[in-house]
């Protein structure tokens, strides 16, 4: 066979024979996800469909992470709707409060996602799970309602762009630098309707958390999925998350790729995306004159323990610049506890950081760090669209945690190698 990773996974869930890109198929799903913003709409559609039960209450994940802890009455009402639905349907994986974290950090960490799964989520960053070999993609609320009822959805089999990783990441670089570089190369619609598939000799040197960061932003190039193979490193990660029975998963050696891009990790410096699109990427060093009002470290992109370790390594013994607000949001309670245990939170506090609860919060301009007009933020989040974090006259730059931490120290965008 000559199947790409996307085709191989889809075939496992689809009765008809997959011929190749462009084919419309009906496929079963392993799991269905929604959050406190998108679930209320899905529930409305679910009810309009006349449905009385979900296809499997153990395979639906409802994570109230966007506007929580509830920022106002309207968001509290939305969470109440989701909570009541979860109870009525007997949904096991409902998260709110102390066991809740940012969905795309929480679910893989809890061992709920595995290689070869098909996961659909009413959240565009559902593609994160491609980092552990899951065909995972965002859909809207009504598509999600249909998947909750039927346990199935439809897909157009995507064309695949193969990304070959060469070499090893340099000091202070991580998954974010890889994906920002790639988005700048492809453009924000360069992978529209397509799958990105990562492999190559550099794969071994990209940690699973870095892969999750890379896959997370596949959508920022328009991609349907950003898929990594499941190798021994992934299996170790999954085992630590409490899973058993997973196996390696690779594309067929003879798989055909209409387009290939290779990335030389040895020559990749720390990257920053400038306003107002994730494709406006430049090396951090070229932006060293840009002053900042706020730095945010967190989100489904870069709020995991390896991200906090990278930030703390730079902030240790240093202070955030006078007048700059440094906000750290560990992505899940487990990440929070681990950071506490390792003394990272103390390092952040001594650097003058505000440490917030696990939440999407400021990433989408929800709460916990909204920008006024004329303010500028560097964030480890995933989107820098106009007005994304607050005022239409504010600006968001995107980077990995090392650049964010170094920039918090100087108050200007800073390549950590130059600190």
């Amino acid at each position, binding site marked *: 066979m000559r199947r790409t990773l996307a085709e191989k996974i889809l075939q496992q869930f689809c009765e008809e024979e997959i011929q190749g890109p462009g084919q*419309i198929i009906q496929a079963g799903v392993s799991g269905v996800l929604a959050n406190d*913003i998108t679930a209320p*709409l899905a529930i409305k559609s679910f009810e309009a*469909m006349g449905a009385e039960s979900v296809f499997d209450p153990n395979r639906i994940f409802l994570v109230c992470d966007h506007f929580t802890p509830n920022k106002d009455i309207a968001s509290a009402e939305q969470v109440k709707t989701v909570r009541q639905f979860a109870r009525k349907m007997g949904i096991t994986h409902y998260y709110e409060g102390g066991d809740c974290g940012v969905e795309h950090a929480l679910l893989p960490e809890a061992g709920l996602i595995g290689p070869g799964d098909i996961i659909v989520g009413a959240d*565009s960053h559902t593609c994160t799970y491609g980092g552990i070999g899951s065909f995972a993609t965002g859909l*809207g609320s*009504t*598509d999600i309602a249909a998947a909750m009822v039927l346990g199935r959805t439809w897909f157009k089999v995507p064309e695949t762009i193969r990304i070959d990783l060469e070499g090893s990441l340099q000091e202070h670089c991580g998954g974010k630098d890889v994906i920002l570089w790639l988005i700048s190369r492809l453009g924000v619609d360069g992978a529209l309707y397509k799958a990105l598939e990562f492999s190559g000799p550099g794969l071994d040197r990209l940690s699973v958390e870095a892969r999750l960061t890379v896959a997370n932003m596949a959508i920022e190039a328009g991609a349907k999925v950003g898929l990594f193979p499941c190798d021994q490193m992934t299996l170790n990660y999954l085992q630590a998350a409490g899973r058993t029975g997973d196996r390696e998963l690779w594309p067929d050696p003879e798989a055909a790729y209409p387009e290939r891009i290779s990335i030389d990790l040895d020559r990749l410096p720390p990257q920053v995306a400038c306003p107002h699109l994730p494709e406006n990427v430049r090396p951090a060093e070229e932006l060293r004159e840009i002053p900042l009002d706020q730095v945010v470290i967190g989100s489904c992109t870069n709020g995991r323990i390896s991200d906090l370790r990278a930030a703390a390594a730079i902030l240790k013994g240093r202070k955030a610049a006078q007048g700059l607000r440094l906000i750290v949001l560990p992505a899940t309670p487990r990440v929070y506890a681990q950071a506490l245990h390792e003394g990272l939170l103390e390092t952040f506090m001594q650097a003058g950081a505000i440490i917030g609860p696990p939440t999407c919060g400021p990433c989408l301009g929800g709460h916990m760090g909204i920008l006024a007009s004329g303010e500028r933020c560097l964030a480890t989040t995933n*989107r820098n669209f106009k*007005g994304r974090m607050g005022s239409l006259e504010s600006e968001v730059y995107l980077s990995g945690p090392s650049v964010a931490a170094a920039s918090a120290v100087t108050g200007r965008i800073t390549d950590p190698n130059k600190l």
Partner: protein
Amino acid sequence: MFFQGKAHKLGAHIDTDAIIPAKYLVSTEKEVLGRSCMAGIQEDWVQRISPGDIIVADKNFGCGSSREHAPLAILGAGIPVVIAHSFARIFYRNGFNMGLVLLEIGDDVHQIDQDDHLKIDALKGLITDQSKDLTLSTAPLPEFMRDILSKGGLVNYVRERLAA
């Protein structure tokens, strides 16, 4: 499915935060969301719209988040059709599921100007620019999608399956 209205031109990569900023995502009501349609471009953008007007945008319309509030806000503002060079994938499915007519016409989009009067036959995929005496056509929808459309959208499609 026939429509006619005035063209409102928008640029490339109009993201869902532009269509409906996150601060308005505390409602699921089409009419409420419609009042803030395109508030991420300009707070009072919707004031320039008359019911039946048509958005004509460049590449990658609807990129960004999966929020279904985006097509709902457009419909709530009284806009039944969006014509674009191309659409972001999730937005395309959402628009379709919500009953917002989406026509992808590539470079032909540049032939339509602001305020042109457009007449649309959605099922045939035909766009007539009456200000220019110009007719443009789109590629036909895949059969499965026509099937959903003929049942009046995804909610009805699933409702029918459950009743069967």
